[in-house]
């Protein structure tokens, strides 16, 4: 999922500097260009930093004339990829509506003026709406509708590599906290993979993620997820009966 991505890739020099800036001197309009460049780096290197992106959205909130809809769209896509973390909502909280509309109208007018035609202008406004619709589908686990809409909006989403895999990871997360055993058709619809590709996918997870399969009488394949505290009540109970260490240390002198 989203947050784990920064730990998997080695930190670039730029990301190190920007992270420093964000933690030491975040309320500084001069770092805006660095943060914008960092968004583009996150896109190209398939990393993610919610702190840096929130910092940028904050600066845009303070100086609305400097807001770039293109950068914001990228941040929103990256935030979608971070699900189940609520990053997408966190971003929306920071984007003033008034500016959104004004900004988009201005850009729309500018584009028309440059003679590039209506369609591109409309795309600007559609971008934010589309992303919100996509988020809505993911939040309400409507995966089939999500993948349909995503296919129609490929031109918006393909600028960010890794999008599909990230959403598939989210889908699997939701399935694995809901199901102990899930029918193949439900899995297929959730991750938008079918047939031989799906077979390969399942095999990969059997080897690496502890999945297993069994045959269901008439419906075909059942995929079994490893048990976790969310889909297995037994595991949850043992977590709740834990005793904090400080309490034990109180009685150690007595026992000893």
């Amino acid at each position, binding site marked *: 999922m989203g947050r784990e991505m920064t730990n998997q890739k080695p930190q670039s020099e730029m990301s190190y500097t920007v992270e420093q800036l964000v933690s030491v001197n975040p309320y500084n309009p001069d770092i805006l260009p660095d943060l914008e460049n960092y968004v583009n780096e996150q896109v190209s290197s398939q990393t993610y930093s919610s702190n840096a992106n929130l910092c940028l959205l904050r600066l845009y909130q303070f100086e609305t004339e400097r807001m770039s809809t293109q950068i914001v769209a990228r941040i929103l896509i990256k935030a979608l990829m971070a699900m*189940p973390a609520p990053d997408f909502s*966190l971003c929306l909280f920071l984007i003033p509506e008034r500016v959104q509309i004004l900004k988009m109208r201005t850009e729309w007018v500018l584009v028309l003026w440059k003679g590039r035609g209506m369609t591109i202008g409309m795309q600007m406004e559609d971008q934010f709406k589309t992303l919100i619709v996509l988020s809505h589908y993911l939040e309400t686990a409507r995966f089939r509708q999500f993948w349909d809409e995503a296919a129609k909006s490929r031109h918006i989403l393909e600028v960010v590599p890794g999008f599909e895999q990230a959403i598939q990871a989210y889908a699997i997360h*939701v399935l694995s906290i809901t199901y102990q055993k899930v029918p193949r058709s439900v899995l297929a619809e959730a991750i938008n993979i079918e047939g031989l590709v799906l077979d390969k996918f399942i095999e990969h997870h059997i080897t690496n993620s502890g999945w297993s399969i069994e045959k269901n009488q008439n419906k075909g394949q*059942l995929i079994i997820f490893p048990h976790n505290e969310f889909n*297995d009540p037994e595991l949850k109970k043992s977590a709740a009966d*834990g005793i904090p260490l400080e309490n034990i240390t109180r009685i150690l002198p007595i026992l000893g």
Partner: protein
Amino acid sequence: MTGAAPYDSDQPHGDSASSYDPNYVPDSVKSFVVHMYRHIREKNVYEIHQMYETSFQSISDRFFKDAPWPSVDAVATYVDNDHVFCLLYREMWFRHLYARLSPTLKQRIDSWDNYCNLFQVVLHGVVNMQLPNQWLWDMVDEFVYQFQSFCQYRAKMKNKTEQEIALLRQYDQAWNVYGVLNYLQALVEKSSIIQILEQEKEGLEQFTATDGYDYSGGSNVLKVLGYFSMVGLLRVHCLLGDYHTGLKCILPIDISQQGVYTSVIGSHITTIYHYGFANLMLRRYTEAIREFNKILIYIFKTKQYHQKSPQYEQILKKNEQMYALLAVTLSLCPQLKLVEETVNSQLREKYGEKMLRMQRYDDEAFALYDELFSYACPKFITPSASSYEEPLVNYNQDAYRLQLKLFLYEVKQQQLLSGIRTFLNVYSTISIAKLASYMEVDEDTLRTILMTYKHKMHSVDSDGKIISNMDTNFYIDDDMVHVVESKAPKKYGDYFMRQIVKLEGITSDIDRVKLE
């Protein structure tokens, strides 16, 4: 609000405008500043606190009910024209003005200047005073409040006069959001409060144990201001809608323990109110419920002791707001077992009806969510200045409307969950097909709803870990839904420990008897 008062003099509004003489210093004020000045020099924190809390209030009530205190120039002669004392006096002066009267634009700007000067003195580390925590908290709290008030004021463009706009353009640095955030951040950094709190955990520093006071002859001002500034940052970030960063700012403070933040009730309430609200917006429902529950119990037990204090009104107001937030949170995530009996009965009294209606998720329910959220939410602000160009419209409600809209959007997404809850509370196992027919949806839709339930009732904490907020738990096995009975887990470990300690106590008692 700013009215017709001239902009270059500190004149109040109302009938006393004609009778206010900034240079007239009644004897009680003279005596007040002289004694206050002496106590500050001699570091008599208790006396300073008495004068600050009680004397200031009673003199205000007697002489300055709706007029400002004498100007700082008039009192300066009684205190050796001490620069720092004058800054402190002006701080109180402006706070009194904001509380009793409406500040003019010029006054707002002057107050900003005063805070800048005061903070700069503190940041340079040349301050050698010990001030009561109450006062230091009030400084930070008032600073953020005046910032919020300024943003609201600035956003009401419709009736602004030419002069006001000109003044706003000229003094664009006053209450600038960068300035406010950077001062708070600077106080946190310069005081090294985060490192102090870290080292305290390892026993290398004393801070909480002394309530932040310095008993080795130094000053508590920078450290405590730095500490309270973390709460100030939490508040400002909530006002901007940045809940994630707000919670990050408060991370060095362990809210599961007592601390300097609990030494002043205003700070305690502000911290938990914003902490709870931020968690609510981040869907960390159980965390929000726990903290609201704790603070509401605390207020219930201690509010009687604050009846005479000037903060009493505020305490009651925040109490009511947190009940409303708790009602909202519990309607989204009915974890009633987390709520203590006293709080629960108060909650039922205030919002029992409304909570039942909110859980129906019909049109009326949304109106109630809207009502309670609007009543209880922080006064969100738009941090950017407008372009001051025609047409002049009021945009002071924009920030609030955005947060409300997004909140209701979230509620809407959870609309179908209450139906599920009803059935899950009745069955221990039920097939997808049957449940779908009861809920009058097709099987695919039902699977979607069940997954939404799971997703919405799990939140991600600041470390990326998944936390369950599930009230009624379940899992699906192919096409069967298995409901997990949520029994309160038997705390065997706890029970054994208590018995061990008890036995030890009895044994040692018996031993003592033998010796005698």
